[in-house]
């Protein structure tokens, strides 16, 4: 199948701004799904609210566009009630880690077989450019006219600590790498987190003088390095990319099936 077979073409051109990295994330994700040869009717995409969340309307899967921050909670209900479904949950940085932070850590703790994608553009784009929990200090935003003083989360460290069993980071610039990580994340049995650094040229880029979309991609290229690379060893201040965690642990739905077995046996005896 071609990429377009996974799209709802009637809604294109999409609503994202020119040069928005979220479009590239959609591009990378569709390639992952296509290369894995997944059945569209077996995939549920659940999203929250924000620029990122509109992604679910563009894919020809079962799509559930939910409430701000709650995508993983809805997805947990979908997955546990029908574990044979592939559940993919793209979220924005505010969506996943501010209002949705509690659901994020608990979904990771349960190790439920869901693929969470954090489309991190470090800003609330839909509402016009407010700082997010991933902006970090010293950034300009409409709600930080004197620069931010809030520290940022490190999504990878947070996901690791919370118990996610697959954790990776890539960027919109490194689109083939992102596709590769997304493929592995979808195949991984357990809670997977893929953070993809994405650019918002309209708000974040303009306010923080990072230039146009292409210039922001150059920053993604130049400010990151693959783990284990000489570049990262030589420049430890760079943001590491790569697969940070890939381990096997009991998966929630499979463990629940054991509870069903125990309960049924007890009732029968």
């Amino acid at each position, binding site marked *: 199948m071609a*990429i*377009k077979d996974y*799209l709802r073409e009637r809604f*294109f*051109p*999409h609503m*994202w*701004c*020119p*040069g*928005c*990295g*979220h*479009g*590239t994330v*959609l*591009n*990378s994700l*569709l*390639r992952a799904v296509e290369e894995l040869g997944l059945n569209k009717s077996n995939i549920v995409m659940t999203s929250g609210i924000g620029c990122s969340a509109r992604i679910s309307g563009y894919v020809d899967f079962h799509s559930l566009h939910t409430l701000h921050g709650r995508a993983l909670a809805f997805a947990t209900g979908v997955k546990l009630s029908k574990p044979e479904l592939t559940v993919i949950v793209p979220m924005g940085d505010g969506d996943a880690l501010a209002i949705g932070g509690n659901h994020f850590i608990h979904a990771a703790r349960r190790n439920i077989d869901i693929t969470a994608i954090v489309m991190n553009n470090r800003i609330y784009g839909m509402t016009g450019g407010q700082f997010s929990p991933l902006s970090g200090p010293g950034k300009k935003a409409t709600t930080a006219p004197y620069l931010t003083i809030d520290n940022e989360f490190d999504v990878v460290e947070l996901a690791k600590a919370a118990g996610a069993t697959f954790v990776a980071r890539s960027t*919109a*610039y490194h*689109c*083939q790498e992102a*596709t590769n990580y997304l493929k592995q994340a979808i195949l991984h049995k357990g809670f997977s987190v893929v953070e993809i650094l994405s650019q918002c*040229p309209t708000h974040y880029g303009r306010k923080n003088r990072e230039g*146009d*979309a*292409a210039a922001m*991609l150059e920053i993604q290229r130049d400010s990151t390095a693959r783990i284990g690379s000489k570049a990262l060893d030589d420049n430890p201040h760079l943001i590491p990319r790569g697969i940070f965690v890939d381990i096997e642990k009991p998966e929630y739905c499979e463990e629940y099936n054991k509870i069903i077995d125990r309960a049924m046996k007890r009732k029968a005896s």
Partner: protein
Amino acid sequence: MARKKLKEHLINREWCKGCGICVRFCPKNVLELDNMEKAVAVRPEDCICCRLCEFRCPDLAIEIVVEDENDE
């Protein structure tokens, strides 16, 4: 395995928003924005079919159509 040869750049002008990402990162400078701010392949003969423009396009507007070189 047969080498891939470019057949055409399929660029959906309705979907392209003219961000210029494909232009900036094309290793062979094949693409440019026209006066309507839409991507066009101005030097298709230079294309090496790396498909990075297609993979990176945030508008999903580019498709590199290839054929096997020994098909001719």
